[in-house]
């Protein structure tokens, strides 16, 4: 509940900031002479990715984006594992294509769970320069297919395990505001659903919940501060919320932990490079929201890398 209260407080604080910035920017002399500039504001972020998160950024129509996402192992073993670089890694390769001015579709394949994913991003509202629309609003959704070979007696999946059980879904509404050339912020509530969860039973003797939830409501936030035309500092967080009202069982056992990331972005004309320290080794957002057990403040963080390449057609 504390997180919900924090979110509400954040919203309350954001509203005055928006109003103040509207007032400041509309006093611009040029606007007074020529009327409000209702052209779309410049993109709040340089790339469609913000470390582990999605942004509202939409590439030009007919742009193909190739993405390499890499997560090393956690640093907790120190030099013995070269701070995670020699550890088990997770990798995703993805392709996105902007089919319309405000619609992008994509697919990808990930090492963990041999997961295949399909995704869509739809830009609903675009922030304007005059602040007549103060924020951008974008929907992001994906479906993940868990393609691991699942034998009945190893993962206890049962004989009625079907294709539908392999599916999980993630939906998110991304609210973005570009405050100025340097500072951009996004807040993104999300909903995650897994059709099937491991050991979804209740302890018969105590009737305590020992299972994982099928659904998870989460909240993500990200901030970017540009320090040069190509380089920005970025910090993000993904909070899986513990909402008792929607809990399937009596209590939360092994609730997923927040995913904190902090690092830098370097962008060129056709590339974006991200390098950061982050909590989760998972790459797809539903995996982060549902499964992350790494604790950032207990040395359970890792080095993450993203590389993107754009081609215009």
């Amino acid at each position, binding site marked *: 509940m504390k997180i919900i209260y924090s979110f509400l407080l954040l919203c309350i604080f954001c509203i005055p900031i928006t109003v103040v910035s509207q007032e400041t920017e509309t006093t611009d002399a040029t606007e007074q002479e020529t009327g409000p500039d209702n052209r779309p504001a410049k993109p709040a972020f340089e790339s469609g990715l913000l470390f582990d998160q999605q942004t509202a950024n939409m590439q*030009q129509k*007919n*742009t193909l984006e190739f993405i390499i996402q890499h997560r090393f192992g956690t640093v907790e073993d120190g030099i013995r594992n070269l701070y995670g670089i020699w550890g088990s890694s997770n990798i995703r390769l993805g392709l996105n294509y902007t089919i319309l001015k405000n619609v992008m579709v994509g697919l990808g394949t990930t090492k963990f769970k041999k997961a295949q994913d399909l995704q869509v991003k739809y830009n609903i509202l675009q922030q304007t320069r005059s602040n007549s629309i103060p924020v951008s609003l974008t929907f992001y959704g994906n479906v993940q297919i868990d393609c691991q070979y699942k034998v009945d007696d190893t993962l206890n999946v049962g004989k009625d395990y079907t294709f539908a059980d392999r599916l999980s879904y993630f939906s998110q509404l991304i609210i973005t505001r570009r405050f100025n*050339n340097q500072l951009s912020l996004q807040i993104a509530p999300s909903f995650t659903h897994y059709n099937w969860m491991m050991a979804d039973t209740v302890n018969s003797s105590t009737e305590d919940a020992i299972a994982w939830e099928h659904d998870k409501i989460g909240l993500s936030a990200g901030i970017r501060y540009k320090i*040069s*035309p*190509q380089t920005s500092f970025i910090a993000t967080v993904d909070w899986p919320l513990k909402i008792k009202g929607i809990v399937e069982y009596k209590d939360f056992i092994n609730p997923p932990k927040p995913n904190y990331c902090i690092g830098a972005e370097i*962008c*060129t*004309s*056709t590339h974006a490079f991200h390098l950061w320290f982050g909590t989760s080794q998972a790459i797809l957002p539903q995996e982060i929201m549902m499964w992350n057990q790494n604790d950032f403040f207990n040395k359970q963080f890792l080095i993450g890398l993203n590389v993107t390449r754009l081609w*215009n057609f």
Partner: protein
Amino acid sequence: MKTKQLIRLSAFVLAAVLFVLANNVIAQKKPGPWNVPAKYKTMKGKGDVAAGKELFAKHCKSCHGAKGLGDGPKAAGLKTTCGDFSNSDFHKASDGEIYYMAIIGRDEMPNYEKKIPEEEDRWALVAFIRSLKK
């Protein structure tokens, strides 16, 4: 015996590197004259130099260098030299001609119409390139 082999190998590697570098330098030629369509030659626009500087850093610096001297890290790998934007000869070109060269491009000079879609940004880039004159 091993030492001799090592010396031979090192000499071979050095020769190969020198050959590649020399070949690269020899192969790089000066760009020929631009055939700029008439409609671009007379085009004019105003741009914000500071915004242009930012765009230049993102899109152009890797070949043309931070000050437009044609000495960016990718420049040596091109077949033609990038030119020197501080040179007064370059600035004999009209604003529209610079716009055409920067945005429409040809051969190794990429087209930036989709990467810099707004006219305002394109003219900002032209304004910054103009500011590089010494």
